[in-house]
């Protein structure tokens, strides 16, 4: 598709010599090796579907977990191999007929997403936390997604020991879409990738074992608002195509710069700046919705709270990485010539996002909603780095995303451990005195909170420092000042949780901390290790992000 619309002259020749053109339609040239991470993930996801269809129920869980882990690990190995061969730096180029870019930022973000996906699989596969149902270990997901909550069918499904092992292929499909999203090099690929990773997420959100109604409500909300934002995105794409006559990033960029040959077929619209500006704004809205920037953030708290906690962790970490990757590519590759138009708007969005996220979080009483608003504030901090529009901006955002995603995963994994009779005890008042009863879990959560707050010796500090430094060098000093103020406000509610955990009397009927299987322990431990390593010795990762910070055009 993208090949047909590739550039002006092709369309022109179609227009004039319509009859004889079919035999000249070029065969798509696909660089399979360079796209292998994506292909592996989609292939394994397909296999997962087949496993669902043809394997006996009792083997599915093991088969799916093994398949997902192996697939993600193989894809990560493929990313590392590509980076090793220099596709991130010297050999960076555009593959698949201009649809997908293989360059430093794409590989860095893909690697991050794959690792996040791998850790998320561990939390998805956790089966020790919930009490046994009818003698079988159960996970965080509904026994049967289609059963009416509380109905007879659900009870029967629980009795029969059904589990929704489809979550693993769904996760893989989402990961596959996320891999394409930051690498998409034309607007249509961007849109397709967006839908590919969004739809599985909507379903995953609806699959909580406890509080099913809330979970389904959150999924519907997410779906409706997501569809709404997709519409904006698509409309924006249409306008941009109308403006430039092409959907490829380089093509649009060339039209903006005035270097592309004009297309007589689109003379009426090409170069109409109103189309460009409105289209740009609408595409940006679609992406800002995914990162949860104000005023497109309102879905985050509701969805984060309703979704099964492992899904929340995965979504909070991976979606942000993918969406910021796409936003970066859009702003840095398509619109660098337009920075005087979009920068002030982005300034406003970043400021609003930082302030609103931090301020509303202050009065939250539910730990998952608290983390949701915290993720809004963090989206603001990352936007500050995006706005820098230079190499430092890219590398700081890459570093921040890597650091932030592991902290988020770890934090939500800890949330799954604190439980009472009704499942996870997410109300903050229930966390009082946790530090006395379970010092290790509380301390680990404390580390994550300190990293969120950006306290030195954690990855959060290094990330925030890099982002603010890039923003300041890019001339956005007011943004940095507001960022620091918001960080101060944000520190309040992070530290408040720490105070609550360690300096309050435990409640007599307080929640207990479940002993997780090695899977969740591994996810949390990995989060702590990454947080501390990137905090104590960030230089290696900063260098890596720096090396990977050049977009291919």
């Amino acid at each position, binding site marked *: 598709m993208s090949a047909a619309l590739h550039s002006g002259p092709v369309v022109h020749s179609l227009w004039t010599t319509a009859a004889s053109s079919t035999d000249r339609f070029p065969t798509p040239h696909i660089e399979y090796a360079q796209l292998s991470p994506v292909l592996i993930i989609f292939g394994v996801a397909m296999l997962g579907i087949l496993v669902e269809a043809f394997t006996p129920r009792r083997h599915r869980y093991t088969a799916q977990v093994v398949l997902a882990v192996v697939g993600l690990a193989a894809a990560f190995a493929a990313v590392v191999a590509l980076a090793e061969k220099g596709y991130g730096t010297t050999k960076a180029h555009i593959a698949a007929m201009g649809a997908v870019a293989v360059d430093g930022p794409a590989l860095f973000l893909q690697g991050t997403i794959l690792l996040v996906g791998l850790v998320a699989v561990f939390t998805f596969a956790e089966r020790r936390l919930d009490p046994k149902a009818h003698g079988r270990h159960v996970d965080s997901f509904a026994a049967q997604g289609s059963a009416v909550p509380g109905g007879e069918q659900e009870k029967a499904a629980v009795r029969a020991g059904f589990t929704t092992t489809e979550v693993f292929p769904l996760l893989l499909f989402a990961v596959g879409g996320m891999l394409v999203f930051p690498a998409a090099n034309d607007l249509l690929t961007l849109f397709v990738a967006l839908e590919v990773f969004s739809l599985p997420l909507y379903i995953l959100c609806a699959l909580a074992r406890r509080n099913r109604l809330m979970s389904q409500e959150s999924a*519907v*909300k997410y779906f*409706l*608002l997501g569809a*709404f*934002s997709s519409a*904006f995105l698509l409309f924006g794409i249409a306008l941009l195509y109308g403006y430039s006559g092409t959907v490829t990033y380089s093509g649009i960029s060339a039209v903006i710069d005035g270097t592309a040959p004009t297309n007589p077929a689109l003379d009426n619209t090409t170069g109409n*700046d*109103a189309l460009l*500006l*409105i289209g*740009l*704004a*609408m595409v*940006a*809205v679609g992406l800002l*919705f995914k990162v949860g920037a*104000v*005023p*497109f953030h*309102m*879905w985050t*708290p*509701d969805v984060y709270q309703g979704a099964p906690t492992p899904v929340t962790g995965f979504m909070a970490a991976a979606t942000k990485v993918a969406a910021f990757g796409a936003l970066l590519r859009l702003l840095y590759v398509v619109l660098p010539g337009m920075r*005087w*138009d*979009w920068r*002030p*708007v982005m300034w*406003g*969005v970043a400021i609003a996002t930082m302030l*609103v996220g931090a*301020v*509303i*979080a*202050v*009065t*939250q009483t539910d730990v998952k909603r608290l983390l949701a608003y915290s993720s809004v504030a963090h989206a603001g901090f990352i936007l500050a780095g995006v706005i820098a529009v230079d190499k430092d901006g890219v590398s700081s955002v890459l570093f921040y995303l890597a650091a932030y995603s592991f902290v988020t995963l770890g934090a939500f994994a800890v949330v799954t451990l604190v439980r009472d009779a009704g499942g996870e005890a997410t109300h903050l008042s229930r966390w009082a005195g946790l530090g006395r009863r379970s010092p290790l879990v509380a301390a680990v959560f404390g580390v994550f909170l300190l990293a969120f707050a950006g306290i030195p010796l954690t990855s959060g500090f290094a990330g925030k420092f890099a982002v603010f430094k890039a923003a300041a060098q890019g001339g956005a000093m007011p943004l940095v000042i507001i960022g620091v103020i918001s960080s101060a*406000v944000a520190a*309040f509610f992070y530290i408040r949780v720490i105070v609550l955990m360690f300096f309050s009397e435990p409640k007599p009927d307080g929640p207990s901390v479940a002993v997780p299987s090695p899977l969740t322990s591994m996810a949390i431990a990995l989060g702590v290790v990454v947080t501390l390593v990137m905090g104590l010795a960030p230089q290696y990762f900063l260098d890596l992000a720096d090396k990977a910070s050049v977009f291919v055009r």
Partner: protein
Amino acid sequence: MDTLIGLLVAAPLLGAGILLTGGRRLDRAGHLLGTLLALTSFVLAAVLFADMLGKDTGRRTLTSHLFTWVPVDGFQAQVGFQLDQLSMTFVLLITGVGTLIHIYSIGYMEHDERRRRFFGYLNLFLAAMLLLVLADNYFLLYAGWEGVGLASYLLIGFWQHKPSAATAAKKAFLVNRVGDIGLSVAIMLLFTTFGSFAFSDVFPKVGQASATQHATVTGIGFMLLLAACGKSAQVPLQSWLGDAMEGPTPVSALIHAATMVTAGVYLITRSGAIFNAAPDAQTAVVTVGAVTLIFGAIVGCAKDDIKKALAGSTMSQIGYMIMAAGLGPIGYVFAIMHLVTHGFFKAGLFLGAGSVMHGMNDEVDMRKFGGLRKYMPITFVTFGLGYLAIIGFPGLSGFFSKDKIIEAAFAKGGTEGWILGTCALIGAAITAFYMTRVMLMTFFGEERWKDGRTATASPDEPSAEPAAAHSAHGAPHPHESPSSMTIPMIILAFGSVFAGGLFSINSAFVKWLEPVTGHSEGDSPVSTGTVTAGTMVVLVLGVLVAWLMYGRRPVPAVAPKGSLLTRAARRDLLQDDFNHVVLVRGGEHLTRSLVYLDHSLVDGVVNGTAASVGGLSGRLRRLQNGYVRSYAVSMLGGTAVVVAATLLMRAV
């Protein structure tokens, strides 16, 4: 040989590390380990000394570079040692006296349950002090300087359950901070002016300093003097030394008499090149020295607490050294020589005082002593020899070193020389007076402790000194101390008697130090003979007056009211009152107004901000009403705003 220098510091540091982290397991052997490591250090020092003696005068300096401590471009802080004759002198004094006092402490601290910790601190002190005198640059010297300050703090407050000890430790630490600021400022100035703080870089450059740099050099001199004042208890930072006597007596002997308090003299002597280039700073140094030597002597006259009387004496004797060091090349050698002899006899005197206290239920009030010579013969003899040495009895250590300083003071020449010389002579007279007073009140006269009024340790305030723990309350039974305490006293007495003479044979000490500090004879308006004769006259005068006041008449057990000067001197010449009125009150007013400002303004702003953020949060929260339709509207509105803003930017 070079590597031995590092070991010199490492041995006691190792001891401190083991003893302070080893826990209770080491309680039984800890003191022996500490003493052994101190002795190891001394043996190493002796080996190095023998090696140094075997070399040519010009090639005696050993250097050893361990590693680069702070490797920043343009700022290279090295951990390197420099062992020359000056450092060697100090190393021998520190390790020698240090080892003796370790041995003494084995007996003295026998009944203290925290003895292991005490030895750990002593070892820490040795390591820090050795680091101080061995460093080849000011940066490392500063580390040692702070290390001895820390050790001093820990040891003054060793009996921390006594509020007086805790307060004294805090006071010493605070007053020392003032001096330490001086040193740190001096180091910073050195670095900004000369681009280095290594001795070998700085000193040659000081000589070629330009005119503008000269002013800086003078400033550096003043700052170094401030540092010396703090560490060596010189006016105006002398107030901590008297209170520091709250520490165990071995600590007073080692740290607050023989070694640490002389660090200021070392600093000035080591920085001779700087002071030689800054005559104004030198004038300040001699002034401080002269004032302190009189000041300390007067305080020493009035104290009834034997340790505090000795502390006043220490202050005064260091005043002599500082004055000598301020005289420049005429005096450096004699400052150090007096420092060494003083190290012997003052340590001996303190150990003697400790021994007396040990036998007297930890009584420190000399008015409750008397006639002890019969009960403690060894203590009496060793203390007596120390006494004769300090007043400058001919032939003993103090005679040679102090006489040289007085000569050097006169040799300064001009009016300045006359003033300094006169001060030094007056100081010598007062020294003779107060030391005779101590001697008479303690070892001669009536046995004032017999009349039952001396029950020192009242039941509600049990004495802290460990020696008291095993002796019954009530009238004391004076007795000689165990041999672990008397042997160090005897050895130190030997030093007190012979060191000065040995150093003076053939001007050995002058020749020894001259390559490092330089030496010039000066040009004295009065002959050597006259000075010696004058010293003798004032000595006899001082002793005579003391004997008239305390030897001929019985000493009242309760101190008489005394003259205005006496009362002032008992209160350390009102130093604490001065500090209180000027600094403490002023500081209180400042802090109170700042607290007020903090409460009303800063807290107001902070709490107000917090409250408004909270309120804002509560209101914004209500926007999140859970209805998808509202969310969608807000998205639509947001999109409209974003689109409009984008278009507007182009229009602008």
